[in-house]
């Protein structure tokens, strides 16, 4: 019985650490993104609050928390509140299945640095990814504003189009690894000594596109489209309720999907042991934040696609490519 309580305690600690770290890092990514955007556009970015503007996220958070709670007239109140929770919870839940490193022993208890090492981890990622659509749809529907409504429809069209491509692009990796568990996939890559990006380069590129589309980043951010929709589906939200949407979509989602890309294609925590005993964890974080940086960099470099281009590229180019990739992978893997 004590074993059960110990494992329960370990799990709760892991959950709190993951939540604390990634909500905090998500908040600080806002500072990093603004600084990066500033330097890309030859300005300084935030610099007044604290040294190098480092206290800016705290100031923003305090400001968001102390705003008046306003619900627009004609809004569907229950759905309006539910949308906030449905936007945040699935984005956080993606972190439940990310393995940050190999298991280690602490006070005689074996600790796996993953909240839930289940054998259907990749399927769970898709389940939570699909649930994210509801946060968007609900917020657009409940707000009773044309901007929010159009923005949410656009975002839903993008997400559902690219989710299918995402599923097919990941199938190739699951074929090679023979498991859906995230730790299993990393182990398969370590055993072969090859990252799956070598066997599945097409799938990796497709995954990157889908990652941008799912998290509403440039060039797939038609649902925000500041010039026409004034940030779209979250325009009628205020205070922290507004803050949740960019936090979940732009930061938590990007981090979680980057981490899953690292697990699936970039060998997870594998890498030369040059940082001593901490090197697997550091390698994982380096790869993950390298991808996050890549996404932020694209955001401030590229223009935006039209809605027509996004849906047509997704369905007519990427989906056939992804299906072809799966079929070819299956044949090659079986006969070679």
């Amino acid at each position: 019985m004590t074993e059960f309580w110990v494992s329960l305690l370990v799990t709760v600690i892991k959950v709190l650490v993951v939540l604390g770290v990634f909500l905090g890092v998500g908040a600080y990514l806002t500072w990093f993104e603004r600084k990066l955007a500033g330097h890309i556009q030859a300005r300084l970015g935030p610099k007044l609050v604290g040294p190098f503007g480092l206290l800016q996220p705290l100031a923003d958070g305090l400001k968001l928390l102390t705003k008046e709670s306003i619900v627009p007239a004609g809004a569907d109140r229950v759905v309006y509140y539910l949308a906030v929770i449905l936007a945040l919870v699935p984005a956080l839940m993606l972190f439940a299945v990310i393995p940050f490193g190999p298991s280690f022993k602490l006070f005689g208890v074996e600790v796996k640095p993953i909240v839930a090492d289940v054998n259907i981890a990749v399927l769970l990622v898709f389940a939570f990814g699909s649930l994210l659509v509801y946060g968007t749809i609900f917020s657009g529907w409940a707000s009773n504003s044309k901007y929010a409504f159009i923005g949410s429809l656009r975002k839903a069209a993008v997400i559902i189009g690219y989710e299918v491509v995402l599923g097919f692009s990941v199938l190739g990796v699951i074929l090679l690894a023979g498991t859906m568990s995230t730790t299993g996939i990393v182990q398969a890559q370590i055993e072969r000594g090859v990252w799956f990006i070598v066997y599945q380069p097409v799938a990796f590129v497709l995954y990157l596109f889908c990652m941008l589309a799912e998290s509403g980043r440039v060039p797939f951010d038609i649902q925000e489209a500041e010039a026409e929709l004034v940030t779209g589906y979250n325009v009628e939200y205020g205070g922290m309720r507004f803050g949740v949407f960019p936090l979940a979509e732009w930061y938590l989602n990007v981090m979680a999907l980057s981490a899953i890309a690292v697990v699936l294609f970039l060998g997870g925590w594998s890498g030369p042991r040059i940082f001593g005993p901490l090197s697997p964890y550091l390698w994982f974080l380096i790869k993950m934040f390298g991808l996050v940086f890549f996404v932020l960099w694209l955001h401030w470099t590229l223009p935006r696609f039209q809605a027509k281009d996004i849906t047509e590229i997704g369905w007519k180019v990427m989906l056939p490519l992804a299906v072809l990739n799966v079929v070819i992978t299956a044949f090659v893997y079986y006969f070679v």
Partner: protein
Amino acid sequence: MNEYLGILIFFVIALGVGFVFTVANSILGPRTKEKMEDYPYECGVPLYDPEARGTFKQGYYLLGLLLILFDIEVAFLFPWAVVFKDIGIYGLIEAVLFIAILFLGFVYAWKKGALKWQI
């Protein structure tokens, strides 16, 4: 079973965080009610149409239908990919036939113009 417990705990705590973020402004924010503060945003002009949830482009509806077709097919293919090495040539041919039939549906939708965004 313990691993799924982890997901449950994570879910409950994440729900708590979401709830806190939802109600925080009602508790911490000022309560100075003003007459027009909850008026829906439309560039500062009086609303042309007070009900925003009206008609929308039917292309979204078609894409939703296509999603149901393909997303469920992907869900069927996941277990196949896991046991791919164990079921041999039979599994390979069956799955390729399955994908071919699925692709036929896709070609049909394409030819019918369901993927064409601007009509």
